[in-house]
């Protein structure tokens, strides 16, 4: 952890640049509107006023992949939809993260057959898997907070070897 403390009454906080960048990324992470099936209802419920997700900076879901950071894949993905999913993921701008919401996005769920992708990680890299059929809004919010914890530990400025 970086050093963060206030210097007297002057309202100055010291920290590392990486901590600041990660803090900014987590506090305003815009999700891509990607509700495919029943999990979308729970995602909408999490977005609505009772389990407000705008507390976490996700005031609204962006329909455009160019303007979003987070893709919450909510629902089962069929083989016909998989190339579309990959194309939208490729159109998102770095930094980007993926939450696989629900059992169908994580592992195929109850649909163990030829037509449904057995887990959306066959086509996109997933950061957080949220289990449930459908997961309650609190579970989705826990998944978002887990993603926040993961992002806070990243090193965005480190040079890649």
């Amino acid at each position, binding site marked *: 952890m970086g050093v963060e403390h206030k210097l007297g009454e002057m309202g100055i906080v010291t920290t590392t640049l990486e901590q600041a960048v990660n803090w900014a990324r987590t506090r305003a992470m815009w999700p891509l509107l990607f509700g495919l099936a029943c999990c979308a209802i729970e995602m909408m419920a999490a977005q609505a006023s009772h389990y407000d997700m705008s507390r976490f900076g996700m005031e609204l879901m962006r329909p455009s992949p160019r303007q979003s950071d987070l893709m919450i894949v909510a629902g089962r993905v069929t083989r016909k939809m998989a190339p579309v999913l990959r194309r939208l993921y490729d159109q998102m701008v770095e930094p980007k993260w993926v939450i696989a919401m629900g059992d169908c996005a994580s592992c195929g769920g109850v649909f163990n*057959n*030829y037509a449904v992708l*057995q887990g959306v990680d066959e086509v996109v890299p997933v950061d957080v898997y949220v289990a449930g059929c459908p997961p309650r809004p609190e579970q989705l919010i826990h998944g978002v907070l887990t993603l926040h914890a993961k992002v806070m530990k990243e090193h965005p400025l480190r040079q890649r070897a």
Partner: protein
Amino acid sequence: MDAYLTDVVIPTLQQRLAAAPQIFRDEVSFVVPPERLLEAARLLRDELDFDALLDLTAVDYWPDGQPRFHVVYQFYSYTHNVAVRVRVPVAEDAAEVPSLVAWYPSANWYEREVWDMFGIRFTGHPDLRRILMPYDWVGHPLRKDYPLGYEEPQFTFNFDDIERRKPRPRA
């Protein structure tokens, strides 16, 4: 059963198509060979007021049924509130049936679905391609000899075996 059905529909169809009706608990169905399907459709729509094609599916009777497929049409009349079913037996090696798109436009996507799932061609269809599976898919999934295509569950007795072969998430 409805008077319109017993007095008008069944005798007319029986006579003109030379097909015996199969009646089960107020449901009427006729077995019609593929050559007489268009004639039956014209008859049902123009003379007997069956203005709606409610459903068009197929059944696969593999391995023991001869002929292998039956294409099933459900016709409905709004004015008389009666429904009638027409079954067309289709053999596997000559899986072709005339298309009803000219008579009932709602048959368009139903016939695409039957082509996708069973492999039965509809001659005269304007745009016969896959509708549920990806466009380059090989095989017809709802046939009885098509594999289920499921991922094998990992129990304790085959744990190591599956562990070696199972798909890993791509990074």
